[in-house]
């Protein structure tokens, strides 16, 4: 006892004397909200993981911020053939992998073959569908051969980072996911992974043989995994980290007021949230799906509409009853914009951010459609059926959970009973959505660089889990086909507008908002320029 009494202050002193880490010269520490699950580019990665991945690997070309043009990266130049069906890429000659092997056109061909291998199941496969073949002419020349002429040929060719043949060819395709390449990646990018401490840190170091003459000036980058947003705030204000991207908006005021050394930048994000309405009757859908298995085309018109949301007017009323402004202002402190149609990054970028909130009109529509509270229990009813529906969202998203809380209130005001359910995402995708067990869904999509609504709304994808709502409109399908067949960018933009208008008229979704990304960083870092593609996209140009 006595000994412990004497020892205790000593132990305590030792503990306290561990000085807090201060920011070091030449090292940038970046807070990550989640640990990257893997850095293997072949498999679907979370946004966090692919941001880190982008520092380790390179594409052939780098997409510019306008999302249309490209600048050189691994390839120093590219040329179209005369018939516009071939693109020839000339690679830089001094590219080395992190293990000092030389990167050649064989690696490019190898990577393409991996990406298109059915066994891999790469989720960007649709990019490569137009490519017939990739041929290595010599060590630095690669030719991509295309089937059709589209505005997106370069984008299709350069999608997907280049992977090292000399390492991955030794691994069987089936075992790729389980190989340790995902945790010991060898890339050609400006930084190489040197240390990965489970759920703690990922440490990257400068790649000395990086091909670019502007070699990164910062020698070490440490990604620190901080699961709690509040901790992130605390650590960035304590100078334990230099940069953080998922700071809860409620802290932004506090940060800008209290800490003049921190800079907050606000830049456009890629994702948007929406409510998807189930437009078809579950029972009839499942019966028909089982009985007419062969061809969805034949039974789509036979499926009965949902008793509530099969009606376009009701969907309109449901949209009108949501105060999007309240959500964007309160939950995001204005760092999000209400949207009223699908969010696209490409082409027509101007958003219609008006807040179409009109609760009395919503009520009017519902009354016109025959929904009134005849038994006086506060819930609307029609033909003895109550206006009651279940909305699902994925668990683990605080904002969506809060939105559900808000919606319960708002719909309650006009006599609609909404039952919120949180389930984990894969249960949603594997059971609830394919069997149409929901009435409504609160989810978010990541707007692709190339706008394509086929998986979400086209009838050919009717049974695909991403085709959430059972939306079916022959007019839309025609417009969509026209969009995909556009020969050039102006044509594409024109058709895109028509498609967007058609969708916003039909309201299979109620589009809620698109949120801005926020990056907070210490002003000691210069040249910070976050990009819609990744906040660390230009990290190699950062300076201290």
């Amino acid at each position, binding site marked *: 006892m006595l000994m412990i009494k004497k020892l205790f202050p000593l132990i305590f002193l030792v503990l306290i004397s561990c000085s807090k880490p201060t920011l070091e010269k030449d090292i940038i520490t970046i807070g990550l909200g989640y640990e990257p699950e893997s850095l293997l580019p072949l498999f679907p990665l979370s946004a966090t993981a692919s941001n880190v991945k982008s520092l380790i690997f390179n594409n052939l070309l780098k997409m510019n911020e306008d999302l249309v043009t490209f600048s050189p990266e691994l390839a120093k130049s590219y040329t179209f053939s005369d018939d516009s069906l071939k693109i020839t890429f000339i690679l830089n000659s001094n590219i080395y992998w992190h293990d000092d092997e030389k990167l050649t056109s064989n690696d490019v061909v190898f990577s393409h073959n991996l990406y298109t291998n059915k066994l891999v199941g790469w989720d960007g496969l649709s990019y490569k569908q137009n490519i017939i073949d990739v041929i290595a002419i010599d060590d630095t020349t690669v030719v991509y051969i295309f089937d059709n002429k589209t505005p997106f040929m370069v984008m299709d060719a350069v999608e997907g980072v280049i992977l090292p043949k000399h390492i991955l060819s030794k691994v069987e395709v089936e075992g790729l996911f389980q190989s340790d390449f995902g945790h010991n990646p060898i890339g050609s990018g400006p930084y190489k992974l040197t240390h990965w401490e489970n759920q703690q840190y990922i440490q990257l170091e400068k790649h000395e043989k990086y091909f670019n003459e502007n070699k990164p000036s910062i020698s070490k980058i440490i990604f620190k995994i901080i699961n709690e947003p509040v901790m992130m705030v605390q650590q960035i204000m304590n100078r334990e980290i230099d940069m953080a991207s998922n700071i809860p908006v*409620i802290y932004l005021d*506090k940060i800008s007021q209290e800490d003049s050394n921190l800079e907050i930048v606000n830049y456009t994000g890629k994702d948007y949230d929406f409510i998807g309405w189930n437009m078809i009757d579950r029972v009839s859908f499942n019966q028909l799906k089982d009985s007419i298995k062969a061809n969805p085309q034949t039974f789509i018109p036979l499926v009965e509409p949902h008793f509530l949301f099969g009606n376009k007017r009701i969907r309109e009323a449901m949209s009108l009853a949501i105060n999007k402004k309240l959500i964007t202002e309160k939950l995001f402190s204005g760092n999000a914009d209400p949207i009223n149609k699908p969010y696209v990054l490409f082409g027509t970028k101007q958003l219609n951010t008006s807040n179409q909130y009109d609760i009395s009109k919503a009520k009017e529509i519902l009354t016109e459609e025959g929904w009134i509270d005849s038994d006086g229990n506060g819930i609307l009813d029609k033909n003895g059926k109550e206006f009651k529906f279940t909305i699902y969202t994925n668990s*683990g998203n605080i904002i969506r959970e809060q939105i559900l*809380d808000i919606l319960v*209130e708002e719909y309650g005001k006009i006599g609609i009973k909404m039952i919120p359910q949180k389930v984990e995402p894969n*249960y949603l995708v594997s059971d609830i959505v394919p069997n149409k067990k929901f009435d409504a869904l609160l989810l978010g999509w990541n707007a692709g660089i190339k706008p394509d609504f086929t998986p979400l709304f086209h009838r050919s994808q009717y049974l695909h889990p991403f085709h959430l709502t059972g939306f079916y409109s022959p007019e839309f399908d025609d417009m969509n086909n026209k969009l995909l067949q556009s020969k050039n960018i102006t044509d594409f933009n024109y058709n895109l507008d028509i498609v967007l208008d058609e969708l916003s008229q039909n309201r299979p979704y109620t589009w809620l908002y698109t949120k801005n990304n926020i990056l907070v960083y210490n002003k000691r870092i210069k040249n910070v320029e976050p990009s819609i593609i990744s906040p660390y996209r230009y990290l190699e140009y950062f300076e201290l």
Partner: protein
Amino acid sequence: MKQIINEIWQNRNFKLGLILLLLVIIFSAILPNILPGDPNFQNMEKCYTKPTSQHICGTDNLGRDIFLRLIHGSGLSLKISLTTSLFSVLIGLTIGFISGSSPKSIDYILMRMTDLFFGFPKYFLFILVLGFGEFSLLKLIIVLSIFSWMETAKMVRSETHYINSSLFVKSAICQGLSKSNLFFIHYLPNLAGILISSYTLQVSTIILVESGISFIGLGVQSPNISLGTILNQARYFPYDNYTLIIFSGLFILLNVSTFHFLGDGLKATTNKEKFQK
């Protein structure tokens, strides 16, 4: 009977528990029913306010009244733990009694089963079962009770052994009482003390476990409120605002300590009774 009640009444812990129980009943059973207002009502103009006369515990991240949420949440937490404990005590009684009144081989098997359940990493199995599929209160209650009956079973078993050897049971057997009569007339009344005290102690444990599971997001789901889910929100509070953490702590403290005191008091008296024999 009077003597036993007297004895229980004289236990300080029990008396304290009773007084606290009064508070618990007021806060968790009466107030939620008489106080107007919806615990989920949001006033986005007033988020994170500190205690005022209007919101005596302040408001949370969606401008909801914390006090209203706490009394409703504490009500649900109590409902869950009261039912769960009931199930778990029933399971414990069944297993313990069968084990205590069966031949040694069955007794041995059942007791090793109990050890097995003791050995399961409870929280991981909660994660395994509750982390998937839709949430329902029933599922939560069933899972909680399946993994909390063991202590009751052990106590019931040893008490059953004690009753087995008592002469009144031997006499009753000689009088040809049927097994069910024997159980209801002789065993159950004598097990009652243990059952009640382990029930109350169980309630306090289950409140803690349930709030822990809800806290990590696997238990009660919104719009249902439990003390754990409320406390979970504290993680998003600005860190100079202690209202939520303090008040929800007080509520958990009140609920748990009430049943702890009651159970402790009951346990002490039932034990004493045994010594007197």
